[in-house]
């Protein structure tokens, strides 16, 4: 019951803090619900933690990709590049407005990239932090 309340509160928070609700906000709201379900002490996403996630060298995943920056370049605002040399549009929302608007796409790439870089899937908290950081960029 307490959880459900929290989810409700999170959703309400999203609804009030974001003037225009959209697919991205829906994705964040769902992640919030998931995060609070994973950890009762969840108290919102943090762009700072997102930044750390983005730029940390994990070295726990595949050796070719120690960090998110291996492909997304060191600044979210810059063009990135896959290992095969294909350009990646900037991951920052200000530069690429379509970012984090397709739930399936977001899910697919978090699954793949977190496994490649960290060696495990990301938690809802990490995903929410990451998106929050990118929305501020």
């Amino acid at each position, binding site marked *: 019951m307490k959880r459900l309340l929290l989810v409700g509160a999170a959703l309400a928070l999203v609804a009030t803090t974001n003037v225009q609700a959209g697919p991205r906000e829906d994705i964040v709201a769902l992640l919030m619900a998931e995060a609070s379900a994973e950890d009762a002490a969840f108290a919102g996403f943090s762009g700072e933690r997102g930044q750390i996630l983005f730029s940390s060298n994990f070295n726990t995943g*595949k*050796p*070719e*990709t120690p960090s998110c920056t291996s492909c997304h*370049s060191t600044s979210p605002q*810059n*063009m990135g590049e*896959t*290992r*095969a*040399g*294909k350009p990646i549009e900037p991951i920052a929302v200000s530069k690429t407005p379509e970012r984090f608007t397709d739930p399936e796409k977001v899910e*697919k790439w978090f*699954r*793949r*990239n977190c*496994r*490649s870089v960290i060696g495990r899937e990301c938690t809802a908290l990490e995903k929410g932090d990451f998106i929050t950081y990118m929305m501020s960029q």
Partner: protein
Amino acid sequence: MPAPKLPSTPTLRVWDLPTRLYHWIQVVLVALALGLGFFAPEWLLNQHVVIGFALVGLILFRLVWGFFGSYYSRFSSFVPTPGRLRAHFSGILNKQSAPAGGHELGHNPVGALMVFGLIFVLGAITITGIVTLGGVENWGPLAGFVDFSTGDRARAVHLALAYVLVVMIVAHIAGVFAESQRSRTSLVRAMVTGDKELPKGRTFGQPDGAKKGAALVSLAGLGGLAGVLFYLGVQVPASGFIQMAEMDDFKSECSDCHELYHPSLLPEESWTLMMAGLEDHFGEDASLSQDTTLAIGTYLERYASEAWDSEAANRLRVVDPEKPMQISASPFWKENHAQIPEEVFKTRPVRGTGNCKACHGDAESGRFDDSKISIPEPTPERES
């Protein structure tokens, strides 16, 4: 004081203008075709082929002119019968100076042998060339009729005949100079001016001229027939390629990290292996949902290299057993790209051996035509 007018040696028009033009155009075209064939990079294949078709036209003309040209151009005037050959050789052995007989104003019997030989070998080269073009490259009038292995065998014959042709050309030139010495006339000049000096004390009637009308009609007929056959041939779809259904999931999911590879570039077994291990795809997680993985896998297996008879599919079917999923590790790929400087693959815009599209303009279609190859200039790293 003006020099006294010497009575000029009487000359005879031996080579008519069409024969001379034929000869010298052929010299130029054969030189170009050989040069391009032996030395030019693959992407000049089209130029080589166009010259080849021009030579087909030239040979057709020569065949017609061999029947309707003026006397010395007609095949019947220089058939190298054993009798003539014997007489010619005994003439040489007895150190007689040529010409010994009237027919030697035209081609002597050895020269005639060479003329027939050159026309035959050149004809065979163009035919094997068209078979190669159709079978291996899947282009031209035979693209719909010749399979890859036949084309590949024709290519070997085409190459062998080209070497034979080079030897014949050397012999032909040597023969011309030897005979010029022996007969104390420049055969080269005669092929330019058309005239040969008449041997002293012998008279020749003016040889009968060409049957221009008959020549024109037969040439138009033969040319028209060749044109129609060519036209009909190129309408037939190339046999190396099959109709491939489009698949949106394959197109989008397999082009996120690199260009979309054509399914014909790897054998079925390689695709099966690849789709079973997307969690570790060349050191990266490229996993997809189970349904999508299955659907793309089925699609790739269906259109794997075994289903095609194109050059790329045939060549790339043999993979490196150590790296069966990497096209650019296959023996054919490595051999064919060995000449390209390492630097090109390391810098933009190529950036890696897997970026086929950077050099092969038609990579997406799986054709990999020679004429679509161009290695881009390495550009300095762009600022990020």
